[in-house]
């Protein structure tokens, strides 16, 4: 068949298909969208024919364009975000964390190790805190956890109604840090190592200093609650970054680009989980940790409970009740 009769025969089909595409692209599939897959396959066949028979490039390009648009609509990832999110929370996330336990362990060792070491150092040699924090930062830190203040934490000197502001501030600040820690992994993992180390050191310095000057009754009850989520999330973000770096450093049997892509697809889920943890942490920090009307023992009890919950979640959730077939 020559080109002109071919065009004449199928022109109506193509116009119809283009109309369906317009509707789908606007997100309003018409009643004939059930016929869309069949129409798409027919178009692909016609395109293959047109190419095989050496028809003119104008026609072939027109058909290619239709096929491309059809391909976009046909293979759109219509993910059910809600269902996926619930599945991820119920099992996928802890499962993923357990699968990546080596990296999570490495990130945790670095982070908690530097935190502990710096904390002990500052506790025993108080002047060391100035090697990391500027004097006015130290003053600010002390003001935050002053036992005489009625509210604790950043913006502690402000009175009530600041919860919203604190929540927003914590979200912006902590998630920014977590995202940076993850992204730094692309630099052969060095960025993630750096951010883990720096965050561990500065948190350790603050903890050591405040404990050393005797603010234990304000500092520790304040941080223990949301720390369960916040510190865990930072180690996960670090682990995700280290995964990127490791894929570049030791890609195994894959080309580096492919190894990086596969690592990124997994680690971005880890980051999404860390994001959820940080949202919880910001909420707890703004609405629970800063409250002073609760007694210190209660704060410790809740803190221990939250740490236990987090640990139980990541150790136990998502394990199959039966052995897999």
């Amino acid at each position: 068949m020559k080109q002109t009769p071919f065009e004449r025969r199928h022109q109506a089909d193509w116009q119809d298909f283009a109309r369906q595409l317009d509707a789908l692209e606007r997100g309003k599939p018409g009643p004939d969208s059930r016929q869309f897959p069949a129409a798409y396959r027919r178009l692909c066949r016609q395109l293959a024919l047109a190419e095989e028979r050496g028809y003119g490039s104008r026609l072939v390009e027109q058909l290619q364009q239709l096929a491309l648009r059809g391909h976009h609509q046909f293979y759109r990832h219509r993910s059910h975000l809600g269902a996926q999110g619930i599945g991820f929370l119920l099992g996928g996330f802890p499962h993923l964390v357990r699968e990546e336990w080596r990296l999570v362990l490495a990130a945790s060792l670095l982070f908690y190790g530097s935190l502990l070491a710096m904390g002990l150092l500052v506790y025993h040699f108080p002047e060391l805190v100035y090697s990391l924090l500027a004097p006015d930062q130290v003053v600010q830190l002390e003001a935050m956890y002053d036992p005489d203040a009625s509210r604790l934490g950043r913006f502690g000197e402000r009175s009530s109604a600041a919860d919203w502001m604190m929540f927003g501030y914590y979200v912006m600040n902590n998630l920014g840090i977590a995202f940076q820690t993850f992204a730094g992994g692309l630099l052969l993992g060095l960025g993630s190592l750096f951010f883990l180390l720096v965050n561990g050191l500065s948190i350790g310095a603050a903890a050591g200093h405040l404990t050393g000057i005797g603010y234990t009754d304000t500092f520790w009850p304040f941080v223990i609650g949301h720390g369960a989520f916040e510190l865990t999330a930072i180690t996960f973000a670090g682990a995700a970054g280290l995964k990127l770096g490791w894929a570049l450093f030791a890609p195994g049997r894959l080309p580096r680009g492919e190894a990086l892509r596969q690592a990124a697809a997994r680690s971005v889920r880890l980051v999404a989980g860390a994001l959820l943890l940080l949202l919880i942490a910001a909420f707890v920090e703004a609405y629970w940790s800063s409250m002073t009307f609760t007694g210190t023992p209660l704060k410790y009890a809740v803190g221990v409970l939250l740490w236990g919950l987090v640990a139980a979640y990541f150790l136990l959730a998502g394990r199959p009740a039966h052995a897999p077939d």
Partner: protein
Amino acid sequence: MSASLAPPPAGTARQPPLDTRYPVETPEGIDLALHPAGLVPRALAFAVDLAIRGLLLLLTFLALGQFGELGMGLTSLLVFLVTWWYMVLFEVLNQGRSPGKQVLGLQVLHDDGTPVGWAASLTRNLLRVVDLLPFGYSLGILSCLAHPTFKRLGDLAAGTLVVYRERPSSHPALPEVAAQPAPFALQADERRALLAFAERQSTLSAGRRRELAGILAGPLQVPEEQAEARLLGIARELLGPT
């Protein structure tokens, strides 16, 4: 359909293209050609997005600044959303197009030509901070310039591609000439080349047309001046009766 069992003549269709087209083979057994976008249009799209975001934040500060601490909290949340989620939300919910990309006619796709999803979009936009290093997108620009399909580092990790959105092309009409049979059987790619010449002849100068047609004067066994008319006649014949 006349399926020939003989292997296709070498170099008809499966040669790597000369330009930057990026072929994607679909499960339906056809090749789609994507046109990756280079550094300049992408930078312009980013500039447009940057301006929009700046304006958005400015308005937020002005509007929510009135509300004291609640306003400050909302502002931080919005700053967070706009810095980290602006691109992701637009790319996933608006078929791979942030407003800047829409203006420039660009689109983000997975490497296999499918529209970008949550995971890939989040990856490429979180890793943007690395592309920014050490200053002014240096790494991103270097990677973009060095890669055959102009990927920045975030694109490499996420397996995504920024392409031009195809726009409907104009349909040049073939000149009305009498159909003439070809003096010998033509291969598919020869037919394509001949039709392409006939379709594009209105965009070429007369001298260039004569020069191009003259190349075929020998095989067609016509004097060089008549080669062009002869080619158009053969193209008309290839198209078939109108």
